[in-house]
């Protein structure tokens, strides 16, 4: 038999025409590395890699992840298919997390400042030297007044360790970062229905209203929510309408993008409520049963918010407001989501409240496809626990902001400068306000450099951020892949518990936070005689975790911490179907969430020993545990009266409108023709301050031009790439323009996360700026492999402080600016703020506090309020 003659030429020809058949031929041997998550194999050796489940902590979504380890080294990160919320998906940031561990600029040893603050001169010291020095400072501060020890944290997920540490020291001066994040969203929601966030059931919704949230890129829970919103859009044919000043990727994904005038979302939401009530499209039964107002009260109140009124303020046409209101009210189920868009304004709490009223009045609460309560799980704290400090801290609970339960941290520098509270030792953990806060270097940089105001500054950080660079002592913290931490995050409709666990030995001499704090306490109280050591009696992070997880009913039977070490998350609700990407039960059907949580009935055991008041509130041992409605005993909502408080009486005590309302930003009303509003936003591959040194992410996005509308740009003669000067009341910056139709003509926008002046060689790109200076790794030739030479421009120096007098939030999107072509003396990258101008802005914003002189002027409807002197002392809500 003659064999076919196969030359290279002939088989190439054959392959070109038989490709389809080849593709259809059976493939019994597959590279295991291509299997659906949960396992990974070395591409060279074929050996299975060690898989360690964790919860990601590059940002705060808490995606389930798996670290694949070879030789005590993370070689890959991917999603954990057993995690019910994120279902095996991990975003670009999560995939890059190992860069934190191995960053050549990482701090691996305790460092003591030896030059002037911020000069960059350090000496490596031993842990014992560091702890001895710090303990002496703390000891002296405790003797004077424990509250002179301040700890401010940013992204902390220690699960209670920070409070334990500060309470052990006896200090109440614990300050978070939430006011630069979403605190007015929280305060808009908490007194109304209890929790501080909603869980929109996007996957099952038929209609979505999105106010100012970039769900697909950056919003809280963007990974799990972007999965669900895509399912809803594709599988469930839902409609989504996005109100945003900018054509974000989420707005582009929506059926309609409605460019609303900045800071007016609340007015639009109220007007939509007006239409719904006017046309009797509300769910009267839900309102009358589950809220503290009647339909009639609501109708009367909403009469004032006409579409004509809102259209004039927001620029959204009357017909659009009316149409969308009708669509939302008549399409079931419908849900709504907000993030910073409505909340980050002078009266952000009012805006948030106005938005959440829409699903409330249409009865879309806790329904499938609706607006649901968040689901989370807790864990017990190790015993014994230190008691709470007896003396309150001004900085933690500023008396001018009694309703701001999540604090007003961005005003802290001014209060310290004004002498409101003395600080002897300032400790910072996972925070970087010198970069992330309004005023940035001009405000926080000035505070941190002032050794009279802050005599001793300690940073617990793995990286030399803008704040850490100004410290006196640096204690090397571990990045997230080296820490033990408990987790639970309401990022889907299924509650879960999870952990972070070290996937490899910590590098150098870095120590995770809880160990660091334990060691400080042990140094202060070596023999336990001061009564401090008893609260820190654990061997290591794992032992601490056992206190959290080994006795939780259900988890305990499954194996407690050992189960979490193996799976990363509990419970495991089902199996991830690789075809649908959904979690399925044993029959192959998608698992279903539980809805109607507030309608759970109390059991006879629950009811034993209870009392029910005239409003139906069921109390036990002095605490409301449920509410009687239509003859049944329900668990209700987690508010004081177990129903939704459309009218928040506590607000009225301070002269704020207790009902849904809207306040226009006064300085927006008087804007001149050539003035614009500056907003900021996040990109999908960066977070606020800690990703610019992650090489994979920086390569994707490293610069941040100013978005400006085409018509606006035409007026000032600017085209894409031109240098522009942006001036606010507090400073100016010079950056490049990106001219686009995708932004409101009265708005300009700058992405955040760029323009670092610290944070290591990659973030600063100083090699490109200034050769010959040995600092920041300028001489490192590896930077020559960095093909980009633009690190962006940081906007926060020119953004003045604004504080919501209710929720305490920073008004990030309230800044009025002028934009012009850059002049001859303007240089790309200029970013300058002025302390005095920022200080003036602080004084101005305090005038809107309930104690300020503008409060009454802004609230003519509260004319009967008897003034600040009439207010009883209250503790703020929230946590």
């Amino acid at each position, binding site marked *: 038999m003659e064999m076919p003659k196969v030359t290279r030429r002939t088989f190439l020809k054959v392959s070109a025409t038989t490709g389809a058949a080849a593709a259809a031929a059976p493939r019994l041997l597959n590279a295991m590395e291509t299997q659906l998550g949960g396992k990974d194999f070395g591409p060279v050796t074929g050996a299975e890699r060690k898989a360690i489940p964790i919860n990601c902590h590059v940002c705060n979504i808490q995606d389930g992840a798996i670290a694949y380890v070879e030789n005590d*080294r993370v070689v890959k990160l991917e999603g954990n298919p057993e995690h019910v919320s994120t279902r095996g998906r991990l975003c670009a940031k999560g995939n890059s997390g190992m*860069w934190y561990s191995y960053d*050549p600029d990482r701090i691996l040893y305790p460092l003591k400042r030896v030059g002037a603050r911020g000069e960059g001169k350090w000496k*490596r010291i031993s842990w014992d030297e560091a702890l001895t020095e710090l303990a002496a400072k703390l000891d002296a501060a405790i003797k004077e007044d424990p509250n002179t020890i301040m700890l401010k944290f940013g992204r902390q997920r220690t699960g209670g360790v920070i409070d334990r540490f500060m309470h052990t020291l006896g200090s109440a001066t614990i300050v978070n970062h939430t006011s630069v994040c979403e605190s007015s969203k929280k305060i808009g929601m908490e007194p109304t229905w209890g929790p501080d966030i909603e869980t929109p059931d996007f996957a099952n919704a038929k209609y979505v209203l999105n106010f100012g949230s970039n769900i697909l890129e950056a919003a809280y829970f963007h990974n799990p929510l972007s999965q669900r919103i895509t399912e809803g859009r594709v599988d469930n044919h839902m409609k989504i309408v996005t109100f945003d000043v900018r054509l974000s990727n989420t707005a582009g994904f929506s059926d309609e993008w409605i460019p609303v005038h900045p800071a007016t979302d609340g007015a639009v939401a109220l007007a939509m409520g007006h239409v719904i009530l006017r046309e009797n499209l509300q769910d009267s039964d839900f309102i009358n049963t589950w809220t503290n107002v009647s339909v009639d009260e609501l109708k009367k109140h909403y009469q004032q918010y006409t579409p004509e009124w809102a259209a004039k303020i927001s620029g959204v046409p009357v017909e659009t407001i009316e149409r969308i209101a009708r669509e939302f009210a008549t399409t079931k189920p419908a849900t709504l989501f907000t993030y910073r868009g409505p909340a980050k304004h002078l009266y952000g709490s009012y805006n948030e409240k106005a938005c959440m009223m829409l699903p409330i009045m249409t009865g879309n609460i806790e329904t499938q496809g609706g607006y649901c309560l968040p689901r989370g799980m807790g864990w017990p704290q190790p015993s014994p626990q230190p008691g709470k400090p007896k003396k309150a801290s001004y900085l933690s609970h500023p008396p001018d902001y009694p309703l701001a339960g999540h604090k007003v941290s961005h005003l802290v520098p001014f209060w310290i400068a004004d002498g409101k509270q003395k600080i002897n030792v300032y400790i910072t953990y996972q925070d970087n306000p010198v970069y992330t806060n309004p005023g940035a270097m001009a405000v926080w940089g000035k505070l941190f450099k002032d050794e009279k105001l802050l005599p001793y500054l300690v940073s617990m950080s793995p990286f030399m951020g803008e704040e850490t660079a100004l410290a006196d002592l640096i204690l090397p913290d571990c990045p997230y892949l080296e820490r033990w931490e408990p987790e639970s995050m309401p990022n889907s409709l299924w509650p879960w518990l999870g952990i972070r666990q070290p996937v490899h030995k910590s590098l150098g001499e870095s120590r995770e936070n809880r160990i660091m704090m334990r060691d400080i306490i042990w140094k202060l109280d070596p023999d336990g005689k001061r009564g401090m050591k008893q609260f820190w009696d654990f061997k290591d992070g794992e032992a601490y975790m056992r206190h959290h997880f080994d006795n939780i009913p259900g988890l305990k039977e499954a194996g407690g911490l050992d189960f979490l070490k193996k799976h990363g998350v509990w419970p495991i609700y089902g199996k991830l179907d690789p075809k649908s990407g959904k979690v399925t039960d044993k029959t192959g059907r998608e698992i279903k969430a539980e809805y109607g949580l507030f309608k759970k009935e109390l059991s006879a055991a629950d009811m034993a020993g209870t009392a029910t008041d005239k409003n139906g509130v069921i109390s036990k041992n002095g605490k409301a545990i449920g509410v009687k409605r239509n003859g049944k005993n329900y668990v209700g909502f987690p508010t004081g009266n177990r129903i939704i408080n459309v009218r928040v009486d506590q607000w009225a005590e301070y002269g704020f409108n207790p009902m849904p309302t809207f306040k226009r930003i006064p300085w927006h009303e008087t804007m001149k023709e050539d003035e614009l509003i500056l907003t900021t936003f996040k990109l999908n591959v960066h977070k606020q301050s800690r990703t610019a040194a992650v090489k994979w992410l920086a390569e994707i996005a490293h610069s941040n031009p100013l978005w400006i509308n085409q018509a606006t740009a035409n007026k000032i003669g600017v085209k894409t790439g031109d240098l522009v000067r942006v001036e606010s009341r507090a400073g100016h910056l010079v950056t490049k323009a990106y001219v686009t139709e995708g932004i409101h003509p009265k708005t300009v926008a700058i992405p955040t996360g760029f323009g670092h002046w610290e944070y*290591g060689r990659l973030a600063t790109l100083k090699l490109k700026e200034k050769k010959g200076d040995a600092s920041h790794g*300028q*001489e*490192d030739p590896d930077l020559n492999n960095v093909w980009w030479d633009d690190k962006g421009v940081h906007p926060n120096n020119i953004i003045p402080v604004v504080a919501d007098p209710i929720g305490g939030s920073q008004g990030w999107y309230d800044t009025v600016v002028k934009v012009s072509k850059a002049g001859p003396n303007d240089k790309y990258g200029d970013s300058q703020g002025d302390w005095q101008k920022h200080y003036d802005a602080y004084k101005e914003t305090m005038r809107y506090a309930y104690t300020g002189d503008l409060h009454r002027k802004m609230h003519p409807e509260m004319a009967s309020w008897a003034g600040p002197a009439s207010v009883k002392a209250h503790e703020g809500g929230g946590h």
Partner: protein
Amino acid sequence: MLKTELTLDEGEEVGAGETAAVLASPGETATEWRARAEVYHLLSGVFVEEPGREFIEALRAPAALADLAATGLRFDEDFLATPLDVLLENLAIEYTTQFACTGGFPPVESVRLTGRYKQQPNFDVMQTYQRLGFALHPGRFEVFADQLGVELMFVAKLLERGAAALDQGDVAAQRRLDKEIKRFWSQHLGRWVRGYSQLIERTAQHSFYREMARFLGGFAGEEIEAMGLRIEDADQARLEVPKTEVRVEFNPNEPVCNGCMTDALSTTLAAPDNLRRFEELRDLGGLR
């Protein structure tokens, strides 16, 4: 410090790549290896952590300074004339700036070759240490297995072992160690130390580290040559050598047809070596 628990296998033949050192008498070789080990220890002490009082005192002894000067090291007054306590503090600060702090240049092979801590070189050297019976214990500070000071210390230990083997007449063991040293240089030190030393020479603010970096670079070059190794320096900081100074086996500007040699020559004749090389090429051309 490296803790040694090395046992030596028996009976291996002399193979290709072994140096001429074994051809000297065992006693001479042992002496030479001990001398080399001392230099390795010295350089290890410079880079593994901040120098201690005894270390600096010994280095500033007149005899030591004279010997170092004889090798071409030129310390400035900041090292020679500064009171010891002040000097120790200054060196600790300079060490932190150069080697142990953000913005510095960690003396770590993984960083130099991959841009990150704790990558493959770290595990490779750890495996080598373990295979040869060494365990790494922290000194004043915990350091990576592929830290410069540790890698140098490892070679010093092998040299000492080799010398001890020779003392006992165990030439085979010494030869095996010679191979190990060459392998380690080829796989690790030789791939990054020369370029790195040039970087530190440029960036050091203090003459102690500047000169010790020069010493390291010179010593590394000498060791590589003496061992007869050809190793490409893959360090990120290796200097870009001007084209005119590149010693080439061919004229890189020469067209493939070899028809325009005259024009191309002008760009490559500056270096004497190149000149010699091109004279040879011309001669060869004349033969055609």
